[in-house]
């Protein structure tokens, strides 16, 4: 019995890890739902402190401009009430000239993928939508996307190793370019990363 308890503790660890890894494999199986070329303008370099050697890129995107109106909020499941809980949804991020912009949202990803079929231009990412009552009408915003930071694995982290954090504001010359993929479960990964000519 005692040995069985010990084995079950080890089994919980192994099964949980296997579950996660199978999920990762499923996400990355088949054709990616998006394969988008980005530069440092849309994916800022984030160092996680002096004692942390891990690197991540934070997606930078412009919020909704007018399209997240009352009708769209109702479509997302919100009512005309002064205060409501934020809701999970999927947002479409479009790669425009030098930036990512939120252009649409829905409760499910499938209709969005049909509507925005160009996988080199559009990313469909899980997000949270919030509302507030402003100037006597319901207003909404994308509170956050759920995987805002993307881990940079080896060998790509070596490419970015010598670079400092991306400046938080101002117009800057991008130092790197990357290929970002989104899989079947709308989880991203970096499939390529290279320095731009000026940084080599």
């Amino acid at each position, binding site marked *: 019995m*005692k040995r069985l*308890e*010990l084995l*079950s*503790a*080890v089994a*919980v*660890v*192994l*099964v*949980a*890890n296997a*579950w*996660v*890894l199978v*999920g*990762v494999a499923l*996400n990355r199986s088949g054709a990616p739902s998006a394969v988008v070329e980005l530069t440092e303008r849309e994916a800022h370099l984030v160092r*996680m*402190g002096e*004692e*942390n*050697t*891990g*690197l991540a890129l934070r997606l930078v995107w412009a919020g909704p401009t007018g399209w997240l109106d009352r009708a769209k909020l109702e479509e997302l*499941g919100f009512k005309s009430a002064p205060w409501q*809980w*934020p*809701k*999970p949804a999927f947002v479409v991020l479009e790669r425009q000239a030098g930036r990512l912009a939120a252009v649409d949202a829905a409760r499910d990803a499938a209709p969005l993928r049909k509507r925005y079929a160009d996988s080199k231009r559009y990313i469909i990412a*899980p997000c*949270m939508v919030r509302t507030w009552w402003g100037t006597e009408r319901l207003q909404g915003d994308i509170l956050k996307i*759920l*995987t805002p*930071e*993307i*881990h940079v*694995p*080896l060998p790509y*982290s070596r490419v970015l190793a010598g670079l400092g954090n991306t400046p938080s504001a101002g117009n800057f010359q991008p130092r790197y370019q990357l290929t970002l993929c989104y899989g079947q*479960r*709308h*989880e*991203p*990964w970096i499939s390529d990363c290279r320095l731009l000519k000026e940084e080599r």
Partner: protein
Amino acid sequence: MNDITSKREAQQRVDRIRAFRQDLARLERENVLTLSSEQRQGLEASLDHELEALAQRFDVDVTESQKQISWGMRIASTIGGLALCAAGFLFFHRFWGLLATPVQVAILMATPVCGVLAAEYAARRERTLYFAALLCLVAIASFIMNLSVLASIFNITPSPGGFLVWGAFALILAYHYRLRLPLVAGLVCLGTYVAAELTVFAGVFWPQFPEGSETLIPAGLLMLAVPLAVKHRQFPEFPAVYRLAGLLVVFLALLMLSLKMGKSYLLADAAVFYQVTGLVAGALAIWMGIRHRLPAMVNLGATFFVVFLYCRFVAWWWDWMPKYLFFLIIGLISVGLLSVFKRLRRTA
């Protein structure tokens, strides 16, 4: 002595023997009772033999100084466990960027397994289980780090499932080694999982469960129900942990809702309802605690009853009443509560 099965029972027996010896010495000093030298020798030999056997079998504290040192060891093992967890976490962060993904995954997976094996090795070598407890904490923290970092490496959308497996893992270790700290860790994780799933059921994104404190109440009630549904004959110290953890979760959730720090899914204006519910729950805990002879339940119930009551007083009177009068009333009410508790204590 054969009916003693746990270290806790053995320690209680040792404490009773020590108290009996002190009482006997006092009675002899006051000439109330005098033992013949043969009787004394026989009694002392029997008690010494029993103490020796208990110390050998359960590694209990036979003297007062041993007991004090044991407390020090318990504190040291808790702090040591936490420090080791922090060291492991920071060490991994210091080097993980230099490792390829398969190596990262292998290290993350191996760390909690090694923690379990090390705890088992320590448990087989020392009966006090101080090192085993410390290594169990390390194993639990490693498993939490394992799945959290894995989610970060593969950019996985956060889900509450991790809390379920962390809770199951901690509970297995708690029952395997009969340790209360892993049990508390397991209950925290499982309580979080239940609250997060109920939050999803309410149509809200799960990381917001701390804001909607109502979902914590069923989690706390489930913890309270465990000792009623499952008899812990081999683990007599565990039901108290379930009860206290459950009550604490329920009371904290009620307090947050009553102070409008948490939002209600069920009622538009829930604060008044939860203010009354908090007071009733506090009184109910005191009554149940007295009825079933559970002093910790009485203390926790009394503490939260007073907290709920004083929160109301602050809300009703603080703004308009002169401060000296406010504190005078609080002082008088405290004296009144003391006399009520005193009467309850007498009847208990």
